[in-house]
């Protein structure tokens, strides 16, 4: 033994130092506060299936009514897989493991009771330029477990710089892929939004529509077209709604202009696309909504497409302005001011998030501080009344909460 003293002493030091470090790390852990969503008023069931993707002092965590799940509590492999992986994607991956290989983007997926469909843009990348665009389509019949796949070249693919998918839907055996295609041109507005129709039984491209092609902008120059539907919605909506954003029509080549000058926003138009009939329609939104739209350039707010209705939401000094417009009959369904107590109006600074779940509007503060009284509010869409109020509390320190600086990234329905 004595002869080995050099080796033995090194090994002893190694075991003691590295061992102590990792044992200490495993046992001490970090005493992370156990945040949980608690109901302040109203029915607690509205908070049961939601969770908040958040961050507290450098740590990522998910807060629900059950408590908190911190990223560093995950096993090594779970951490590799990812903490915030979309729960819908997770579920699809476990249900249809083979089909879901390499398909992680929720915007490229469609699901209903019968099928699961997927579309992806393929292209060649050479010397910093993408070319040769085609669309790969894969469909899984849930009942028979049969898979079919085909690839179709993007028509006039030479004209595009890039093509990416906004949405995938299947209606009566026709798969409709909404894409944004950037034109290979130096012009100011060079994006086109297309809807490609694929016949799934014959595996062919049957139609290539351009959104808003015939629309003559009533004001200014078309800047861009944007799909407004929720990106992670897999099916259900009858309409796709596009916002066409117009800016002032000026010659950008004018030498008197500042090189960074960006043309000023003039207004938006809304275009609905009926997925069943394929009809494009420009809709006349009420003046109040148009007014809200303009203000929303500077104040927090959002436009949400849900259940064939457009919801215009703007944060004001006293609460929210909420206008619900029915796409089906073209009428303003309701116009509400949601009153929010003065103490909670720090919402305005905190740029809240909005989600519509089961005909209720969820309003979530993006930052929760000690002073935040009602970080989660649930309002009735019809009456504009705040029905339920939820808060985030540190369970360990009891009711006398002392929390600050929880940032909320997203509200997720499980």
């Amino acid at each position, binding site marked *: 033994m004595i*002869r*080995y003293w*050099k*080796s033995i002493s*090194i*090994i002893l*030091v*190694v075991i*003691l*130092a*590295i061992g102590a*470090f*990792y044992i200490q*790390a*495993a046992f001490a852990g970090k005493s992370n506060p156990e945040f949980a969503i608690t109901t302040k008023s109203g029915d607690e069931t509205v908070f049961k299936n939601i969770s908040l993707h958040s961050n507290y002092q450098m740590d990522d965590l998910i807060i629900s009514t059950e408590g908190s799940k911190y990223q*560093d509590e995950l096993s*090594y*492999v779970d951490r*590799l*897989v*990812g903490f915030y992986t979309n729960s819908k994607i997770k579920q699809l*991956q476990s249900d249809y*493991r083979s089909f879901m*290989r*390499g398909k*992680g983007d929720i915007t490229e997926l469609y699901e209903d009771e019968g099928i699961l469909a997927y579309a992806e843009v393929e292209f060649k990348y050479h010397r910093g330029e993408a070319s040769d665009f085609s669309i790969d389509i894969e469909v899984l019949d849930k009942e028979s477990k049969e898979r079919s796949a085909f690839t179709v070249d993007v028509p006039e693919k030479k004209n595009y710089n890039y093509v990416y998918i906004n949405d995938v839907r299947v209606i009566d055996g026709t798969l409709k892929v909404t894409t944004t295609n950037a034109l290979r041109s130096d012009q100011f507005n060079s994006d086109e939004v297309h809807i490609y129709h694929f016949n799934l039984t014959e595996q062919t491209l049957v139609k290539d529509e351009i959104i808003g092609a015939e629309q003559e902008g009533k004001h200014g120059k078309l800047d861009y077209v944007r799909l407004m539907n929720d990106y992670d919605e897999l099916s259900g909506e009858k309409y796709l709604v596009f916002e066409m954003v117009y800016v002032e029509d000026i010659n950008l080549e004018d030498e008197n202009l500042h090189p960074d000058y960006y043309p000023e926003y003039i207004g938006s138009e809304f275009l609905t696309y009926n997925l069943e009939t394929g009809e494009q329609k420009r809709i006349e939104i009420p003046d109040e909504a148009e007014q809200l739209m303009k203000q929303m350039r500077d104040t927090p707010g959002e436009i949400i497409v849900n259940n064939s209705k457009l919801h215009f939401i703007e944060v004001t000094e006293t609460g929210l302005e909420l206008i619900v417009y029915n796409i089906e009959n073209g009428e303003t369904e309701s116009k509400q001011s949601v009153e929010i107590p003065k103490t909670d109006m720090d919402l305005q600074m905190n740029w809240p998030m909005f989600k519509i779940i089961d005909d209720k509007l969820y309003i979530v503060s993006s930052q929760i501080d000690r002073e935040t009284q009602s970080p989660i509010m649930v309002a009735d869409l019809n009456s504009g009344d705040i029905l339920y109020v939820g808060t985030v509390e540190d369970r360990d320190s009891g009711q006398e909460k002392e929390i600050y600086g929880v940032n909320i990234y997203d509200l997720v329905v499980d």
Partner: protein
Amino acid sequence: MKRYLKLVNFEIGRFMKIYLVLIGITILSQLIGVIVMAKNYVANANEVIFVDSLPLEQFIEQYGEMGMMDVVGSIWFIGPIALCAAAFIFYIFFIWYRDWVGKNTFIYRLLMLPTSRLNILLSKATAIFIMVFGLVSVQLILLPIESMLLKWNVPFDFRIDMTVSEIINNNSYLFILIPDSFIQFIINYGIGFMVVFILFTAILFERSFRWKGALLGIIYCAIASIIFLAPLIYEIGFEASFFYTEEIFVIEIILGILVTAMSIWLSKLLLNKKVTV
């Protein structure tokens, strides 16, 4: 077994002097670094606050507080770590080639030992592993000492105190050497030791076939890397993501073990059949 342990001890003993010098340089440079940096910071603070009469708060706003993160990012700290890393990369080769140089080639006696020749390879590898872990341990022991030294030299209002884990987690290269999870630690050093075995095999190729062997060794390194990285090469090369992350994880562990085993087996073959004195 006893022969193997004897050989390990022997290899460690042979490198002990240089090893202790490396440790000495590390300790000295890092401790001196803490003191020098702390003194400089305090001197600067004194000058700015008393001579230029800048209020304390404004000084901190402008120059920031002093903490271990400043020390850890300095050349005093990184320098010796880089030196040790370079020394060990060199030593992977030196541990073999030094047996061949000199008049009475030592490798002749090693190969004549009444023990499996594989033991020679394993003992050399083990010696390197133990000493690398030894250096990591020295760093782990030094960190709290350096924190303490910093506390003695910089007044409370001017410094940020950090725990050892916080210091490590805030520094990207320390985090590779000492990751926060033990599994990651095993993975990092597992990959390191796989590389050591691959290089040993390449060296033995060279020792067996000389110039032609050197070429074979390089080819072997390439083949081993391609095998180990195959899933990633596939995913990037074909722009296809076929595997789930957890599958890649398991496949990589299997491939890593496979490449290490293949290297050891090939080395054994070369040592037994081909190596020339």
